[in-house]
């Protein structure tokens, strides 16, 4: 490869007197916001104002625009945007300056209880970056989670969908939980876990940190720390879930679970698949089947070899897959470039520290005999 930084070339040009156009002046932009997350409550027909402070922590003059935006798409039907405003819409800030944006919320009367959501965006201004250049803007989004007491009850209903100790990719023992919120308002939940062997005192503890869950949504909560795998025959986990203690005063009754788990991951590679996409390279998939007692987060890698055995493409999933106990999870990668017509073999490897890796292979062709050719991928969604 020919790779050259242009710093030297520009220096030579200057020394030799060659004409060099001045580069546009680049600047470092710094912006700090507090509070950067608004957890609020109001009755129907009520409202008020909250101030958000912005500081220009850099050494350049900064212009910041403020606007109200919708929050995430999953709560688009619970938008508080029409009731929310922010002033001023723009502030010019000297280096070190601190300014305040006032967020006002006016809740309509006669609306049902439940969570409503919006966001305040604070965005650095555009400036003339010069020709043939890409401008880089910064934006801080301040979410607004608003619990409204109106008609009917305000409900927060946590449902524990999944919970298990998990063998993490580094071979250490962690824990994960999937919690769904069946209420009409957001909730905050955390858990303290005590681990040991059945019938004995706990020997270790883990914490599932506090996480907020929007109404109708599920969320995976991952333990803050992990433990060395100490090789028990069976793991007893006492989990105590609780609501936020951060002042929301929206306590629901804590709930607890006493569960025993086999500490043995029993994972097998199931079906391996290949299909062709119209807008890119083939999609490679594999099923991972966990018949064991704890979850596993394996490292998975795909490789495609041609008929001569040479590797022609590699891929790893964007996120390490979580294989829950007694569950099957499909993992896959989309190769960026199509493969030429011919015969290939895809291999998939799944591995964990301290365990023998798993491997499965599947011969296939691109084009040719329909019996062995990779089919067209089904439409997504």
């Amino acid at each position: 490869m020919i790779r050259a930084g242009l710093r030297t070339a520009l220096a030579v040009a200057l020394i030799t007197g060659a004409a060099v156009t001045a580069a546009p002046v680049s600047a470092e932009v710094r912006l700090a916001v507090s509070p950067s997350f608004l957890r609020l409550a109001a009755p129907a027909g009520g409202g008020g104002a909250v101030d958000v402070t912005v500081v220009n922590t850099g050494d350049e003059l900064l212009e910041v625009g403020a606007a109200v935006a919708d929050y995430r798409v999953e709560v688009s039907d619970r938008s508080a945007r029409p009731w929310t405003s922010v002033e001023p819409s723009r502030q010019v800030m000297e280096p070190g300056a601190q300014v305040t944006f006032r967020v006002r919320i006016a809740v309509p009367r006669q609306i049902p209880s439940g969570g409503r959501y919006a966001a305040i965006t604070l965005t650095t201004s555009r400036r003339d970056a010069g020709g043939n250049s890409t401008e880089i803007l910064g934006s801080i989004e301040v979410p607004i989670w608003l619990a409204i007491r109106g008609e009917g009850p305000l409900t927060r209903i946590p449902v524990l969908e999944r919970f298990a100790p998990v063998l993490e990719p580094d071979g250490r023992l962690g824990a994960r939980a999937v919690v769904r919120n069946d209420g009409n308002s957001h909730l905050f939940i955390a858990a303290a876990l005590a681990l040991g062997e059945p019938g004995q005192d706990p020997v270790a503890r883990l914490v599932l940190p506090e996480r907020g869950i929007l109404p109708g949504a599920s969320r995976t909560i991952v333990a803050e720390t992990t433990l060395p795998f100490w090789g028990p025959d069976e793991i007893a986990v006492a989990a105590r879930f609780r609501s936020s203690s951060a002042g929301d005063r929206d306590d629901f009754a804590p709930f607890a679970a006493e569960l025993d788990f086999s500490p043995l991951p029993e994972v097998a590679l199931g079906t391996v698949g290949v299909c062709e996409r119209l807008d890119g390279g083939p999609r490679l998939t594999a099923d991972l089947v966990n018949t064991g007692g704890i979850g596993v987060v394996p490292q998975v890698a795909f490789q495609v070899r041609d008929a001569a055995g040479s590797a022609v493409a590699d891929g790893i999933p964007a996120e390490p897959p979580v294989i829950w106990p007694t569950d099957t999870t499909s993992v896959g990668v989309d190769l960026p470039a199509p493969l030429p017509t011919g015969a290939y073999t895809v291999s998939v490897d799944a591995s964990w520290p301290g365990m023998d890796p798993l491997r499965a292979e599947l011969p296939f062709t691109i084009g040719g005999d329909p019996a062995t050719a990779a089919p067209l991928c089904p439409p997504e969604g």
Partner: protein
Amino acid sequence: MSRDRPLVVSVAIVALASSILAGPVGAATDDALTVTGQSDPTLEIALVDDTAAFGDNLTPQGATPNGADASLGVIVDPAATSTGACYEWGSKIVVSSNVAYDVTVTPAAANAKLNWLTADPSTFAACSGGTAIGTDPIAFVNAGSVGAGNEHSFWLGLEVLWGDAPSATRGDASLTFAVAQDS
């Protein structure tokens, strides 16, 4: 799996629900807006360089441009010089947050010649690969760590191919790095 320890029957009672109706939220009994959560979430973003200047005189041979950022590099595949050149520009954002955060990158408009990269490209294929700048937001950081000075590097690869018409605006784009704290 190779471990030959006996499988212990696990008890998997993982369906557990608690349903309660929340009481009044906040202390207010009038129509006031009440702050109910943590009072001190704070977030800072630093854009180390707010302009990727590609300059003039970008050629498929990989000529040195005029008026470009000094850090701009150029890559030509010696095995395929007839393809063209890829100019690469790298920078980073720095985030300080006391709550986990996400960062997305939203282009103002599509630019198929400009590629979003999260690793320093060392080959022409890498520089011209990545994600072409479209109109969809790009997930950049997911669940960034709590702490000060978290650096997130990125690169832009600008293709200048022999088949491309000459252009003085092929690097024009606008990218907004939006950071938001998780709940």
